[in-house]
């Protein structure tokens, strides 16, 4: 049962209008631009809540709202509509995006107070919210792609917000280009859908692929679709092998890192895989690759997170690693889809809170991001410390904070899946827990505990109220989010109509044993970090590193790999092509022109200007013609 809801487009329309006004009005809007931007996001949130409430008041099998705004393409059998779809899956995303988005708008009022371009910043933020809502509300893959590219654009604009800094401009380009690689995958997936099924809307495609056991689509096609969608997801969600842009994306203002590069945009890949679950249900292979990518990234992100001294980059690699958990969750199939999404929601709260905390710390330390220059901040910034600590406990998964419930479920799902692969994934996820506890404890100890290692002239102070209370709200989410989502609201049951009902299964080890192992893993990681960073003084300059630490500081040579394998050969190729173009193609064209130019230059010397020589030619011509006539006559 589908209900038409004529107001759905307003969810997207409000922030889009806000963005248009802010970006077009120019300096006239400087005085009130940030209030308008925040208002647009908040209005969208209120509307979103109202829509989701009315969605929830319907019986479980008819919880789908459709708003068909207009027909974009109608050619032959292909119909592409600008149609929005609010169902259980989009509903949770709408609340996350507009809710966390509004809080971060509020925080930004304080954070960007002294920035001359604050209005532009809010314009971009609203643009991002609108694009992200298009992405999750789209009713077909083409409109989803519009949102997909829209968030990519907003991300580019916001990473490069301080475009006068070369590092920020480069980071923005890097993010945009790496995303483009993934976007090609998504575009190809859409082409393949059209070529195979002649449809691009969710309902049409999913009914065309059918269900396991009753599908008449070739297995290879489904696997190819799954892998292409995964490539798109990898680009947007910073998963291996397209992960390298996320750490550099921290060049953007911190609210951007919190909203886009932690809570919402980077989770779009997880959304895409979960949304396309009928395709992944049909292909064991594609699902396995998703899980492998997730497991590999969760380890990779956690490992590189242990070596950064830049507080935002630690959080960025943590984001990468946590999205790895979500990918692993959705890669496990029906047992994991819902838990991947729930971890995504919980993560959206505590990671946004952590980033906002990091922003306050940077604010206090004159925009220094080096944790070796921090220390002993818990006394001067009690609110920031308190909210940050709650986020920290939620992230490493200490009960009863939110990460404990959600991450535990993913680990459990890996063991429920069973088999060799399930156990391997479960062990990797548990090892990831050790590393997460290690790098987050290191971050806490270096930032808030120990001795003061502040640079001269730095006088830390607590952030203004407008920057504190969004963190308090998010801290509530960090504390109670996981428990509420899983045991009170039962999001997994709410999502069942979209994501399918998982088959009942028991984990290989009992749930209690798994939880105990998980807690031991946290204690181990945190304890190791305490031994290394809590009991010893931390040097202000990074000490010389051995092979392993050195490799980790270089992000396991990911950038060097990209540079050596893709960027340098690409440069050589373009240089060779430029040479071939200049010498070969241009040479050929210019050579022909020069040949005719030179020849005609010589030929025109025949035009002497002496009338007698012309007369001679005329006579000679006449003689030749006469002679020819006579010859013909004679012959």
């Amino acid at each position, binding site marked *: 049962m589908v209900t038409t809801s004529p107001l759905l487009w307003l969810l997207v329309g409000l922030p889009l209008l806000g963005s248009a006004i802010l970006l077009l009005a120019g300096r006239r809007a400087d005085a009130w631009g940030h209030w308008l931007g925040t208002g647009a996001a908040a209005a969208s949130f209120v509307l979103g809540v109202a829509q989701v409430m009315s969605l929830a008041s319907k019986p479980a099998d008819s919880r789908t709202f459709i708003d068909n705004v207009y027909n974009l393409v109608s050619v032959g059998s292909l119909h592409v509509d600008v149609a929005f779809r609010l169902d259980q899956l989009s509903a949770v995303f709408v609340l996350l995006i507009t809710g966390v988005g509004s809080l971060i708008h509020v925080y930004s009022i304080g954070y960007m107070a002294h920035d001359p371009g604050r209005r532009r910043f809010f314009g971009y933020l609203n643009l991002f919210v609108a694009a992200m809502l298009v992405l999750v509300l789209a009713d077909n893959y083409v409109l989803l792609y519009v949102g997909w590219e829209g968030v990519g654009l907003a991300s580019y604009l916001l990473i490069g917000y301080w475009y006068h800094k070369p590092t920020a401009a480069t980071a923005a380009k890097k993010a945009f280009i790496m995303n483009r690689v993934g976007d090609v995958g998504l575009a190809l997936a859409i082409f393949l859908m059209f070529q195979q099924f002649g449809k691009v809307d969710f309902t049409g495609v999913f009914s065309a692929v059918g269900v396991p056991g009753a599908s008449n689509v070739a297995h290879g096609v489904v696997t190819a679709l799954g892998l292409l969608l995964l490539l798109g997801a990898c680009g947007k969600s910073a998963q291996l092998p397209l992960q390298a842009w996320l750490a550099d994306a921290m060049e953007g203002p911190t609210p951007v890192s919190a909203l886009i590069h932690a809570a919402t945009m980077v989770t779009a890949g997880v959304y895409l895989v979960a949304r396309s679950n009928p395709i992944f249900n049909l292909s064991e292979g594609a699902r396995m690759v998703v899980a492998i990518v997730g497991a590999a990234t969760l380890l990779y992100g956690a490992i590189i997170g242990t070596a950064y001294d830049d507080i935002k980059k630690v959080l960025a690699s943590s984001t990468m690693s946590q999205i790895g958990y979500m990918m692993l969750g959705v890669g496990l199939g029906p047992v994991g889809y819902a838990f991947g999404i729930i971890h995504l929601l919980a993560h959206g709260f505590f990671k946004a809170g952590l980033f906002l905390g990091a922003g306050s710390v940077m604010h206090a330390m004159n925009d220094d991001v080096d944790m070796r220059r921090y220390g002993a901040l818990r006394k001067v910034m009690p609110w920031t410390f308190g909210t940050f600590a709650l986020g920290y406990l939620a992230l490493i998964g200490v009960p009863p904070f939110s990460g404990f419930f959600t991450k535990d479920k993913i680990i459990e799902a890996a063991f429920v899946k069973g088999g060799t692969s399930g156990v391997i994934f479960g062990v990797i996820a548990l090892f990831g827990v050790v590393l997460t506890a290690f790098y987050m404890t290191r971050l806490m100890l270096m930032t808030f505990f120990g001795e003061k290692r502040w640079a001269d002239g730095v006088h830390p102070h607590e952030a203004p109220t407008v920057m504190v209370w969004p963190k308090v709200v998010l801290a509530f989410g960090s504390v109670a989010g996981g428990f509420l989502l899983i045991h009170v609201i039962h999001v997994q049951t709410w999502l069942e109509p979209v994501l399918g009902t998982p088959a009942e299964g028991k984990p290989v080890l009992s749930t209690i044993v798994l939880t105990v192992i998980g807690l031991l893993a946290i204690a181990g990681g945190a304890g190791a970090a305490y031994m290394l960073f809590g009991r010893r003084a931390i040097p202000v300059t990074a000490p010389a590193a051995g092979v392993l630490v050195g490799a980790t500081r270089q992000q396991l040579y990911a950038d060097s790999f990209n540079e050596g394998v893709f960027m340098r050969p690409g440069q050589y190729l373009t240089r060779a092509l430029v040479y071939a173009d200049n010498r070969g193609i241009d040479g050929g064209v210019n050579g022909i022109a020069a040949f005719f130019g030179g020849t005609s230059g010589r030929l*025109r010397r025949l035009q*002497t200007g002496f009338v*007698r020589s012309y007369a001679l030619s005329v006579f000679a011509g006449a003689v030749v013609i006469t002679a020819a006539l006579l010859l013909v006559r004679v012959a």
Partner: protein
Amino acid sequence: MSPTAYLYLAAILFSIGSVGVLVRRNAIVVFMCVELMLNSVNLTLVTFSRINGTLDGQIYAFFVMVVAAAEVVVGLAILMTVYRTRRSASVDDANLLKY
């Protein structure tokens, strides 16, 4: 007297005219040579008219005379202008229209 003799005379006159056009530099002489060639052709036309016993050739000769008269008018006018600007009637001095 055989009419062929007129044709030989016309051929000789035409040759003299064409050589004059090619070798002389004085524009007036060149003009006169052109007239000579035209008139040799007239003579040919009239002769053939006589040989064939028709009047076509004689009528053509009149046309040629009219055209020649018009050509002389234009030609002499050009010559006058050239002479005024260059103080010379040599055809080799009017050689600006070239490569």
